[in-house]
């Protein structure tokens, strides 16, 4: 294998204009990066906790067990190869999220109701 890969870390690699050098490296036998998600207890969502390198999903799972759950941090693990995660661009955060800011009527506290209705 002698192809050159540009690596993406859960969408985290600096953009060309981000002031950093784009990292390209020869894909030797270095293992891909995986993101790790843990369900801390039954009934809760899986939450992102970090990342690690592993040759395949099975190894990623085993490594995640060793690296991220040494103290009963979870009851279930997800591992996802980082390149499959697409992240929103921070520069577009305004367009994406600001429209919600002026819609305060979407929150229950927007409505003034008399005391009598009690706990609505």
């Amino acid at each position, binding site marked *: 294998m002698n192809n050159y890969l540009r690596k993406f870390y859960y969408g985290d690699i600096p953009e060309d204009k981000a*002031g950093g050098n784009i990292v390209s490296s020869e894909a030797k*036998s270095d293992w891909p990066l995986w993101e790790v998600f843990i369900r801390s207890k039954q009934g809760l969502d899986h939450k992102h906790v*970090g990342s690690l390198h592993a040759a395949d999903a099975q190894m990623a799972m085993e490594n995640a067990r060793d690296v991220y759950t040494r103290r009963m941090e979870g009851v279930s693990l997800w591992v996802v190869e980082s390149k499959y995660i697409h992240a929103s661009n921070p520069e577009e955060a305004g367009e994406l999220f600001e429209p919600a800011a002026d819609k305060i009527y979407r929150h229950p506290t927007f409505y003034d109701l008399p005391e009598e209705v009690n706990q609505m």
Partner: protein
Amino acid sequence: MQTHDLEKIFEQKIDNEIKIEPKDWMPEAYRKTNIRQVSQHAHSEIVGMLPEGAWISRAPSLKRKAILIAKVQDEAGHGLYLYSACETLGITREETINDLHSGKAKYSSIFNYPTKSWADIGAIGWLVDGAAIMNQVMLTRTSYGPYARAMVRICKEESFHQRQGFEILLVLSKGTDEQKAMCQDAVDRWWWPSLMMFGPHDSESTNSEQSMKWKIKRKTNDELRQNFVDMCAEQVKVLGMKIPDDKLKWNEERMHYDFGEINWDEFWNVVKGNGPCNKERLDARKKAWDEGEWVREAAAAHAEKRKKRKAA
């Protein structure tokens, strides 16, 4: 957007305590400083496994052996959290490790001192991990998000390290004369190198000022060192041991302990690679890396083969 607009947004975030995340624009120097600091922190965790690992086979009881294995495994975990955080800054794991092996990247000088007796494992927990915690608690509030998150996880685990170390010393301090002497000897040898862990005086530290401005660091080297001395000067009384510093004395006016001057020649000498174990530590890391190469390749080949089998 113009670079200087981006820089303004970046500085506003820092001022408003908004964390910088990997995809955000950041000044090149901020990125480089973080790469340097996070990678050196990671290397310290990994190299730090060596002096302690040396005592796993010689731990005095099964309980102590199990504890020490757990602790050394934690250090490996801490190294991995930090290497991952470092990679989000756009450097590969391999580059980072190459920098360690070539000597370009440093690790904490403390690990260039030998562990001569079992009491050293106690002293490392109490003093070395104690000093590290001072620094790490501060770093949970560092401005770079992935670094801060890694530090939160590390701090949760680190306090067991310090407590088990102190307990080792406490048991020795109540033991035979020989055990007491062993305890004092370990404190004597680890005290000054632990103070050196906080780095040069603020007036001498080239990285300090900018790092404070960017909120990568939140307290100066000297502030942290003072906190550490104040803490240890009290704790050592519980052990009934003596800190090897004639100038250590409570100063009512400052409400801090005064203490003697560090031997900076020794500090720089060890940083430059001439400490008692620099060569041994690096050789051990390189050996592990080189001898692990076939494993890394075999695992990759195995994964490839399994993928093909699945596809067929």
